[in-house]
């Protein structure tokens, strides 16, 4: 089967400052359908830059990128927008939800554009609601972002990434601002989606989060220095049960103490 992502000798040089910054220096990579990849590396190693190019948000300075067999170098601004809309889902670093806009309306957003332009509002609403159910937030559909916890906002962002049934879901530090329990929750959602066949690429700084993925890539100074499969994957569901058991135990001891 052909890879869904195929990049060859990809470079990105930022010319904006006084000195050009060579942020990505020749990355070649193939990602097959159904993969679940963690992209790791020190701060400033070029992870976000690479993700932006994978997400067709930024054009590479050099090198080729084929997404689902399409050479993105040949697409204009609007065609790129349609491609992002149809084939890619984004979970941005730092949520990027629209403020003062309900969870449901945030999730609906990608469906207002692209091939959905002609879809009725009822259908859009229905589909957005379904995605909120997947991330377990259907009961909070009418809440504004500032009324949701960080983990809940992150899950709304994931639901928004899912709503157009993308082939690849790109997530830049989806657990960056979350406590460990909420992180496990989010990883649980990702694992479930991955099992349903969605390809996921996510950036993380945390080794134990990377362990939930199937493949780990490590970037240093704009090049891939390590690319390996994860041997003993952590399963979010099991981890969740362990945490719950630990909490219950803590509660019991607490109660025992206060009872004594």
């Amino acid at each position: 089967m052909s890879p869904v992502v195929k990049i060859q000798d990809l470079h990105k040089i930022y010319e904006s400052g006084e000195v050009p910054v060579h942020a990505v220096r020749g990355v070649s990579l193939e990602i097959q359908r159904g993969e679940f990849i963690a992209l790791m590396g020190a701060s400033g190693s070029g992870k976000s830059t690479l993700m932006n190019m994978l997400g067709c948000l930024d054009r590479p300075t050099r090198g080729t990128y084929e997404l689902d067999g399409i050479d993105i170098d040949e697409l204009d601004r609007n065609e790129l927008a349609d491609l992002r809309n149809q084939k890619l889902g984004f979970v941005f670093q730092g949520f990027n939800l629209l403020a003062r806009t309900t969870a449901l309306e945030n999730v609906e957003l990608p469906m207002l554009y692209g091939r959905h332009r002609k879809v009725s509002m009822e259908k859009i609403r229905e589909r957005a609601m379904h995605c909120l159910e997947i991330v377990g937030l259907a009961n909070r559909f009418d809440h504004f972002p500032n009324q949701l916890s960080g983990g809940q906002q992150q899950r709304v962002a994931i639901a928004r990434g899912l709503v157009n049934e993308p082939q690849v879901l790109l997530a830049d530090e989806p657990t960056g601002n979350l406590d460990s329990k909420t992180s496990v929750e989010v990883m649980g959602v990702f694992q479930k989606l991955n099992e349903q066949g969605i390809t996921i690429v996510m950036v993380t700084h945390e080794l134990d989060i990377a362990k939930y993925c199937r493949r780990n890539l490590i970037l240093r100074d704009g090049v891939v220095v390590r690319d390996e499969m994860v041997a003993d994957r952590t399963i979010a569901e099991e981890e969740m049960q362990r945490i719950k058991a630990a909490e219950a135990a803590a509660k019991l001891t607490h109660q025992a103490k206060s009872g004594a």
Partner: protein
Amino acid sequence: MHFTNTLRVALRALRRNTLRSLLTALGMIIGVAAVITMVSIGSGAKAQVEAQVASLGQNLITVMPGSYSSGGMRGGFGSSVSLTPEDADAIAAEVANIDGLSAEVRDRNQVLANGLNWNTNVNGVGPDYPYVRNWPMESGAMFTEQDVKSLGKVCVIGKTVADQMFPNEDPVGQTLRIRNLPFRILGVLTPKGFSIFGSDEDDVVLIPYTSHMRRVSRRTSISMIRIQAADADKVAQVKQSVEDLLTQRRRGREPDFTVRTQEELASAATATAKTMTGLLAGIAGVSLIVGGIGIMNIMLVSVTERTREIGIRLAIGAHGKDVLTQFLIEAILLSSLGGMVGVAVGVGGSQALSSYNGWPVLVPTTWIFISVAGSALVGIISGFYPAYKAAQLDPIDALRYE
């Protein structure tokens, strides 16, 4: 994007900033309300002037002493004002197609009756006067040609004089003293209201012009002659004949009279009202422009402030065109909703003005459409640049924007 969806997105965006949207629209509301109010006052004034001109009578021609032909300057100087009762008689006798004619001598006098006194206009006129002025009697009758010939000490009075001098009784048959001469009141005129010049037409006592000239004012010339042509299309011809006749009667002297038709009078009067309307509308138009600048300003701020939102939209698949339409529709919604509220406020304000100040106002429907369409246009013009700016943003730069 589906148009209704774009509309929905724009409405959501406006709702998210309700207070700001209201304040922005306020500029438009005030602008449009000002336009509507100003235009209403202007056209009300114009309509009133027209009504007053019509109330002068129908197919009216006036002859006044003095020549105003050369740029409004009084010509023929040295020649004393010289419109005479004989001129009036000559016109009545020789000019065809005349329905009615009345000489008129004006004066102000103290009148006494009933132990009360009152300073009023005492005008000497002919028996046709009420007919020419289209001014019927309320009670009693007008004096006759016979009274004019015999210098009769008779009069008819206007409603104001009747109310002032005879508050509780019927004035007809009573006596009114003018310069200590007793005049019998034959009738009372119907109320006519205010003239173009703002004076009370009903504050008047009419006596035969002959009695006026011999007994009261001792004048030798008359103030004016009013002529009613038989037909609207005879007016020009009558005017010409009158001018010819009077010129002929002056035997080569400088013409010392002016003949004017009612139409000429009307156009002079309404021209002023029109200028005023234009001026008021101009002032109001400026406030519309200010409102438009306000909208552009807010939209520019809004684009900058919502750079991230724009970035998100572009990143997840919006085309530049979608963003452009969204912001443009926001601007148009703001301005045209403001415009509609402005129309309501303007109409209400005009009504309030007319009921508190008694100003004649008239809300012209065309201006309502012009205002709403105009405010939408202001929205398009002032919204386009900010919307274009938003559409040109690069998704990745917009997402990074802090």
